[in-house]
């Protein structure tokens, strides 16, 4: 299915060849109850192309050993591949230095690393941390925990009913007690792309470091950490065609150097005696224990794959998918879109009048259409819009306009069933 040309634009030579791309993803060939899989849950997790699968297999078959330890061939091969992936990621983010790239278990782990390593060391009683109204729980709860421990205060950037942050109110939150900002680049529930460049500059006017949760942005938008000038940038491998169990924390070297370690263990030390341990240099100071070696190498391969397609082209194509889906759903009666920011990534949250999102999800599943129904780990966002949950379709570069047509057809069926 869906092997017809997707883009009819004159510059289609420049555009993505979706049919060719889809052939790279074995899972997209699956059928359920005879119906082709239409996977529109990419904001939760994306699928893996064959080159990444092949890289994982090759690593396990030919290169696996522990890294940074032995002098034998395999350990050297594994270490070389692991560190090569780090350089790939450095290039992808345009970081200055590979020491600024830390492997973690995922975005949540990256944020917790900063909370422990920076927050617990440099934030104290009466200090304030700014987050926004559209954060994922993973960028709320760690800061709440820190506030409880340190008797610090959480301040929230409000948003309007389109799901856009109010920048004047953001600027007004700063004062001499403000010690940290943690902010999503793209909202997972609403799709809003926050103007983070400007918001980072605002924080820096107050000399406040800022962490960007890039879980929903890194797979879909070009990210240049030097241009953005963010202090920390966090994302996950599995949302960008890589494996689960690996994520990245980018941090400015100067900040990472003065932070305390997150976890203690092997590989994060230079020397250990019972009296004193000397910590390793960055990034290893933050990589205690045997890291997710295969997953890290897989993430490197996934990023190579995305770079091969072209992040700008991915972004342009996904914008086209979003615009088409937005227009099609808006044309239906009885549909409310949740999250109508001017600048959005390819996430479409919606409500069907009189039908709970979980019923929508179950019935669409019968049509082979996989969407997410729930609160998307963003309960404060749900509260803002006065809904317990939403249905959410989220697109990737391997989705097609024909798949959006199938989504719309499925929604019509739901409406008919509940009429």
């Amino acid at each position: 299915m869906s092997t017809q040309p997707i883009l009819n634009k004159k510059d289609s030579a420049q555009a993505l060849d979706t049919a060719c791309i889809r052939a790279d993803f074995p899972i997209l060939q699956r059928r359920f109850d005879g119906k082709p899989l239409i996977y529109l849950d990419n904001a939760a997790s994306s699928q893996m192309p064959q080159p990444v699968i092949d890289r994982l297999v090759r690593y396990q078959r030919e290169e696996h050993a522990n890294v940074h330890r032995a002098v034998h061939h395999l350990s050297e091969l594994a270490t070389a591949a692991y560190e090569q992936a780090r350089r790939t990621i450095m290039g992808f983010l345009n970081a200055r230095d590979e020491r600024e790239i830390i492997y973690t278990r995922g975005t949540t782990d990256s944020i917790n690393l900063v909370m422990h390593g920076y927050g617990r060391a440099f934030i104290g009683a009466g200090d304030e941390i700014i987050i926004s109204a559209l954060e994922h729980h993973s960028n709320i709860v760690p800061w709440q925990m820190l506030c409880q421990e340190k008797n610090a205060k959480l301040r929230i950037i409000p948003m309007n009913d389109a799901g856009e942050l109010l920048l004047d109110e953001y600027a007004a939150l700063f004062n001499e007690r403000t010690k940290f900002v943690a902010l999503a680049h793209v909202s997972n529930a609403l799709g809003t792309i926050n103007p983070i460049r400007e918001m980072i500059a605002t924080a820096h006017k107050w000399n406040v470091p800022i962490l960007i949760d890039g879980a929903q942005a890194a797979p879909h938008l070009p990210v240049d950490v030097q241009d953005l000038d963010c202090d920390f940038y966090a994302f996950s491998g599995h949302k960008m065609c890589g494996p689960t169990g690996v994520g990245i924390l980018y941090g400015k070297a100067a900040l990472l150097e003065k932070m305390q370690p997150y976890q203690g263990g092997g590989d994060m030390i230079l020397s250990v005696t019972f009296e004193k341990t000397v910590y390793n240099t960055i990034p290893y100071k933050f990589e205690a224990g045997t890291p997710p070696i295969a997953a890290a190498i897989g993430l490197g391969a996934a990023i190579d794959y995305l770079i091969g397609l072209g992040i700008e082209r991915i972004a342009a194509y996904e914008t086209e998918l979003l615009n088409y889906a937005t227009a099609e759903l808006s044309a239906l009666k009885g549909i409310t879109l949740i999250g109508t920011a001017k600048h959005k990534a390819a996430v479409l949250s919606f409500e069907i009048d009189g039908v709970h999102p979980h019923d929508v999800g179950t019935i669409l599943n019968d049509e082979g259409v996989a969407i997410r129904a729930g609160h998307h780990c963003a309960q404060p966002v749900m509260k803002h819009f006065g809904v317990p949950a939403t249905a959410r379709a989220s697109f990737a570069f391997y989705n097609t306009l024909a798949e959006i047509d199938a989504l719309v057809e499925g929604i019509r069926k739901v409406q008919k069933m509940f009429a």
Partner: protein
Amino acid sequence: MHSKQLYQEVILDHNKKPRNFGALDDANRRAEGHNPLCGDHITLTLRVQDERIEAIAFQGVGCAICKASASMMTTNVKGKTVQEAELLVQEFRAMATGKLDTQTQPHHLGRLSVFDGIKDLPSRVKCAILPWHTLHAAFTAEAVASTEGDAEPMKSIVGNV
């Protein structure tokens, strides 16, 4: 399984026109049920006299499965003794979790067996069970029933199923 088999007329009808919807003024038992994962929330009010359910009503928001389950539960337990209702709680839970085959094993569920197909939709089992869980809570004087934590319906409450 196909959800069409589950979303039968009877379930869609109870979702659209829930029976015993509201709150009793003269209730002597009350319990709340909450599924924080999807926001399903129901409040049950009952009038129990001499161990018999004289009246029952429910209120709340939820998906079609939860609402229909609550609606059909109220029509089924009204007039029954607490003991008979508790038996239905057990049987309904057993059916929804695939431990009771309504085709081959004896039960008292009657039309409630339209929910049989829920066992093939693990992510929706909680939706169907919530009202029953809440009913049990009303009998045992737990103020709030939840589908999460210690009150996880898949592993706790009402004895062995």
